[in-house]
């Protein structure tokens, strides 16, 4: 069984909000209707978004780190928002595990938003139905696009490749390997919702460079060891020969 999901790498997210605007741009132009804004140029603007990037500061000055945290529907494997829906408008697709809302069936009772611990669902004030991330379901199966474009628009927009997309049930997929090898984790595991989306933690990147990696040991052009020794930036045999 397929379970499509996003894996978000907090180590490389720079909080540029490109995924937020790209998501809004694609989905507000979609066949399911616009994501309405209210009072967009006024003092108190508001509107529907499927994806937000939040910022948290971890630690105490001066030992702090700024963590940018993209937040959207996690497409839980056991989604608590689905069984509470009285009309069946909220459902999880069997074929790819995407949790969707049927906007023609939704009565806008907001009950599903109460049942989601992550606050992933929003009532669209204009259409008066619940909306949430669709994993760009109208994009990832669109055969009129070249294959490289059949990805959620947030993934396409990310300049640092912090967002990966794929099937987390396929152990050989890019996302499964990332979760397995980079310590991917789920949010609020205490509720047993088993979110399909995972996050990769912040990592310390350290590179140790040894001196003999900067200067080639046994450089044949310097083999006579005469003084003065040639400077490090003078050519080696590697630089003057094409092998």
């Amino acid at each position, binding site marked *: 069984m397929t379970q499509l999901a996003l894996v978000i790498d907090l180590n490389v997210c720079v909080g540029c909000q490109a995924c*937020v605007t790209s998501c809004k741009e694609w989905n507000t132009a979609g066949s399911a209707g616009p994501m309405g804004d209210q009072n967009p140029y006024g003092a108190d603007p508001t509107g529907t978004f499927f994806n937000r990037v*939040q910022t948290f*500061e971890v630690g105490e000055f001066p030992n702090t780190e700024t963590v940018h945290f993209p937040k959207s529907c996690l497409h839980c494997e056991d989604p608590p928002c689905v069984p*509470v829906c009285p009309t069946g408008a909220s459902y999880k697709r069997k074929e790819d595990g995407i949790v969707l809302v049927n906007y023609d069936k939704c009565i806008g009772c907001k009950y599903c938003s109460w049942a989601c*611990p992550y606050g992933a669902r929003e009532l669209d004030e204009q*259409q008066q139905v619940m909306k949430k991330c669709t994993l760009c379901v109208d994009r990832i199966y669109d055969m009129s696009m070249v294959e490289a474009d059949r990805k959620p628009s947030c993934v396409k927009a990310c300049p640092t490749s912090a967002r990966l997309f794929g099937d987390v049930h396929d152990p050989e997929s890019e996302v499964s390997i990332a979760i397995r090898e980079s310590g991917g984790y789920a949010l*609020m595991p205490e509720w047993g919702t088993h979110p399909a989306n995972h*996050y990769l933690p912040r990592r310390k990147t350290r590179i140790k460079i040894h001196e003999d990696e900067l200067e080639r040991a046994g450089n044949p052009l310097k083999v006579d060891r005469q003084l003065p020794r040639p400077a490090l930036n003078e050519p080696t045999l590697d630089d003057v020969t094409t092998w």
Partner: protein
Amino acid sequence: MHPAFSVIFLTTLIGTAQGLFLALFTAQSYAAFKLLPQPDAHAFYGQGSLLALALLVGGLVASFFHLGHPERAWRTATKWRTSWLSREVIVLPAFMGVVFLYGLAHWLDWHPVLMTLPGGLPVDPTAILGVAGTLLAFALFVCTAMIYACLKFLAEWHSPLTVINYILLGGASGFSLAAAFAAFTAPELVGFLAGWAAIITLLGLISRSASLYRNARLKPKSTMQTAIGIKHPRIVQKAQGFMGGSFNTREFFHGQPVAVLRGVKWFFLLAVFPVPILLLFFGVQGSIGALVLAFIAQYAGLMAERWFFFAQANHPQNLYYQSIA
């Protein structure tokens, strides 16, 4: 959570109606066993059912204001296998239908003997409808309360006490209303109904106090650490992704200072429990005004109680919305 007045009116109005119906049928059952004098059936049972029906219709109308698409409300009856909200939507009209038929049977004096209980007690349609209505009234209490109690993320609601409170508080207000109503239509029943109203109110005080005690000692299961998955004791939100409001900041926060919350709590603790009991006591001494006031005070208190019920519930999603920028 942000208390919605549509839901406050819905739950308090139908709770009172259910309690009122239970009071009517309790009186009828006692009278059938000759434990109470037989009241004027037209006035007490007939008009009483009409009053209960009016409250149920009022609650139903209020509930529509909670929906974004009320014209699709019929669809809510489809997912009764999994959704308590769907179950409530089925049980509520069924209960309304039975209350209507119960009142109609009393109004038309329709008392053909359908069967006879051992001991020679005749069973007529009003008794059958009364039993059906009683079962549906309890089913509706359970459905309404389970809508909230089944949400495990909202620890304040996720408790059997929620169901007990809905039953007892709805029952108390219904019996109080029945006592005030009986003062006009069946004065011989006032003492009986006021007595039960006071008893159920006291039981409600115990269960509501128990849930307040429980909720004051809850430890949230989710923390900032599990919310974003970073294991550090000090995490401070610096931006929530927008500076205007969103659905997340409107729906899940009551937006009132702690003092208001505390004030509402003490108001409902007084208006729902001791004040009505005192007024019921004066009512039994013969003051119709005190009986009417007892119900009005208790109903106003219950609206505050329901407001507090919503406001006190702390949703884990609020962890993501702690500071604007």
